[in-house]
């Protein structure tokens, strides 16, 4: 098939998930069907992404102008190595995340599969579009199902914090989208186009465009949680269910980062005047994320801050904007998605089965859950950049690129932050994995105060109708009044057997498997760093010299 | 500055727009001061109707061919907004 004809197939990356979603909604609550269609569609997308990646290895770009309109008139779609890489990653991680969600039963809802499919359709659109306004639209297509997934975990047995988190998440994203769309509008007002290829270099040529497009970068930075707009993430991400946090971690901030890379590469043509600012913000994000991570007491808060810190690391690559720096940043991006996913799913499995996300509540899991512990530790090693895992190659290349560009302070802070991150994660390891296995601490008090009826009901369905004491309000109140109760991680209640054998594993394999898979993946990406580096290098080349991308979009 | 040339055939419209603006601002005042939510709701109604009137007059003034289409739809939905306000007073009680 010709490149033009192939390019016309790009919208299928969105059409397949969305059509699946629509049909599943019509089909109603048929779980087996939902599961099969979900994984089938995700598998198709991953396979398509891989094919796209193989095709892009020589730096070529597939493009289309939709609706058969000339380039620049219709909405432009384009896939280069960067898009392909992100497509594969996001869909592959979504498969793992969805598997975890099914393991943790968040996916029991009939809304789960359709929402997730729409989400992935939005992600794919955002990754493929070469049009600023269309980017806004697809970011919305990503966001709205995300709100849905968020609230799915806020059912009536969950604490109020889930709703509070959803409120924060939705309002913040709405504000951000508004800023984004105004930025796009201003860019149109100044240049008469929203097509990335038409806009290539416009921000260098006209300072006004640079400021207007600065609004776009600004909005994307909020979504990516760049300092000083970082605060929301740890609150919002730690307030939903572990499965949802896992999915979001892989998708949202990373798509925002992708867009930052793309827009800066094309619209600003890598303008060196802004690089110091970008670098300062990136490093600040990196350091603040790492520091805040040490100060937390809930595992998902710790990990959320690590996510922020990781964004900083990824953006250091953009702040350098050399080919080496961009390749390193992208490598770090891939690594961070995988390693973070591994950690979130390992701790998520524990949170789900032990009913708490607090450091103080659980211990001795290295012996009780060796598989999950191993996965966690691999994730930890990888995240702080210890060989032979992917994080090592990522950090090494980031440091090398930084030194290559003469940014020694940056490099110093990158290294220092990784030590702080190590300390933050070691706290989790120390508290949760070492020591003698016991029953979760916070749990008995919780049982004693409020959750007992729920546990009873869960064990002996159908329950009596008078389950008044299990309302959120009352539970939350008891949680609020009890000093010993943990934060509402929302995975309570877990059945507690007083004669529980505390050395017997509680986590079934299906729940541990996602973390293990990702642990193996981060190992493979470290050992097989050659292949990934080749890919990110091609992607970085496309960013430093976007001419082929621009040409393809203008003349698909 | 362009020389001031006023089209007197628009005088009635402009005067009406001015009067409607006055009515609208008065309604806004009543909305702020209340004192009852019923006062606010009824002032909201008047403000809505004033805006609707302005819509008609602006449409004629700018020679907008779709003015009456818009007003037709607006007449329908403005009614819903008024009904909703009434229902809001009773906290949803029908």
């Amino acid at each position: 098939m010709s490149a033009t004809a192939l390019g016309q197939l790009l919208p299928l990356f969105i059409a397949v998930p969305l059509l699946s979603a629509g049909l599943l909604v019509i089909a109603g609550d048929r779980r087996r069907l939902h599961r099969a269609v979900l994984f089938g569609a995700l598998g198709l997308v991953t396979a398509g992404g891989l094919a796209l990646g193989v095709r892009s290895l020589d730096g070529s770009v597939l493009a289309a102008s939709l609706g058969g309109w000339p380039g620049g008139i219709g909405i432009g779609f384009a896939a280069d190595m960067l898009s392909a890489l992100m497509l594969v990653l996001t869909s592959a991680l979504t498969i793992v995340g969805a598997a975890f969600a099914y393991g943790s039963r968040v996916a029991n809802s009939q809304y789960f599969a359709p929402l997730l499919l729409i989400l992935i359709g939005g992600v794919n659109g955002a990754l493929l579009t070469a049009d600023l306004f269309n980017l806004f639209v697809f970011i919305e297509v990503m966001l709205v199902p995300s709100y849905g997934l968020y609230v799915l975990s806020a059912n009536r047995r969950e604490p109020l914090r889930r709703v509070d988190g959803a409120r924060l998440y939705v309002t913040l994203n709405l504000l951000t989208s508004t800023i984004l769309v105004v930025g796009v509008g201003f860019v149109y007002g100044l240049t008469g186009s929203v097509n990335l290829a038409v806009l290539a270099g416009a921000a260098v040529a006209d300072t006004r465009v640079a400021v207007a497009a600065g609004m776009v970068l600004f909005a994307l930075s909020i979504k990516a949680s760049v300092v000083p707009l970082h605060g929301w993430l740890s609150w919002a991400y730690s307030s939903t269910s572990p499965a949802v946090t896992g999915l979001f971690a892989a998708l949202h901030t990373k798509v925002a980062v992708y867009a930052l890379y793309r827009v800066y590469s094309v619209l600003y043509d890598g303008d060196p005047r802004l690089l110091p600012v970008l670098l300062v913000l990136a490093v600040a994000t990196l350091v603040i994320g790492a520091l805040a991570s040490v100060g937390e007491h809930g595992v998902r808060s710790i990990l959320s801050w690590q996510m922020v810190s990781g964004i900083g690391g990824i953006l250091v690559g953009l702040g350098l904007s050399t080919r080496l720096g961009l390749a390193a940043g992208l490598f770090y991006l891939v690594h961070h998605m995988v390693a973070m996913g591994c950690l979130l799913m390992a701790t998520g499995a524990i949170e789900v089965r032990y009913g708490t996300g607090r450091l103080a509540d659980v211990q001795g899991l290295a012996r009780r859950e060796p598989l999950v512990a191993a996965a966690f530790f691999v994730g930890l090693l990888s995240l702080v950049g210890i060989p032979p895992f992917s994080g090592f190659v990522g950090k090494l290349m980031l440091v090398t690129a930084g030194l290559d560009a003469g940014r020694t302070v940056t490099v110093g802070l990158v290294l220092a932050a990784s030590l702080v991150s190590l300390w933050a994660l070691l706290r989790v390891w120390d508290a949760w994995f070492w020591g003698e296995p016991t029953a979760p601490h916070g749990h008995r008090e919780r049982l004693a105060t409020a959750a007992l009826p729920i546990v009873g009901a869960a064990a002996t369905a159908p329950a009596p109708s008078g389950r008044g004491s299990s309302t959120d309000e009352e539970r939350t109140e008891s949680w609020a009044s009890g000093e010993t109760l943990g934060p509402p991680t929302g995975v309570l209640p877990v059945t507690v057997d007083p004669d529980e054998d505390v050395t017997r594993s509680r986590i079934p394999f299906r729940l541990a498997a996602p973390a293990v898979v990702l642990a193996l993946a981060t190992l493979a990406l470290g050992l097989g760093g050659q292949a990934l580096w080749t890919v990110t290098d091609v992607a970085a080349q496309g960013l430093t010299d976007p001419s082929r991308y621009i040409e393809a979009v203008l003349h698909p | 500055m362009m020389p001031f040339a006023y089209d007197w055939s628009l005088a009635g419209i402009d005067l009406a727009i001015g009067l409607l603006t006055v009515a609208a601002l008065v309604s806004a005042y009543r909305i702020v001061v209340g004192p009852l939510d019923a006062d606010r709701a009824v002032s909201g109604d008047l403000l809505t109707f004033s805006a609707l009137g302005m819509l008609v007059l602006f449409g004629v003034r700018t020679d907008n061919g779709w003015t009456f289409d818009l007003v037709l739809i607006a007449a329908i939905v403005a009614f819903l907004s008024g009904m909703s306000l009434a229902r809001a007073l009773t906290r949803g009680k029908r």
Partner: protein
Amino acid sequence: MTIALTVGMLTFGAFYLFSKRELLRVILGMVLLGHAANLAIIAAGGTDRRALPFVGAADVEVQADPLPQAFVLTAIVIAFAITVLLLALAVTGRADDAVATPGEARDPLEQAASDARFPRAERHAAAGRIARGRAGRRTGVRP
């Protein structure tokens, strides 16, 4: 000038409402901000040409720019959808639709949540460890 002022006022109102405790006011702020954004986008197409963008309705040179209109139409509908969702969220949760900040002790629930994030006992313990300094340290060699 007129449209710029309008956008400015709407933005002012929006951010003023963002500082409020109640989610409903925040939502209304979002509605205002949405108006501001939409007007700004329309303005980006120019407010000098105001003739309807219908083929044959007027001379092309005086017709309003249709593209920002299409953008705004899309944006309005998306914002409407999300507003509906926010409204649903506003009644799902606390009876008072507010979430207090940790500094405000008036909301006991929120206070509890923030304490849970930074448990007092643990804070004190950590502070104590720092204060005690060397007094409490072992050499690490097995006794």
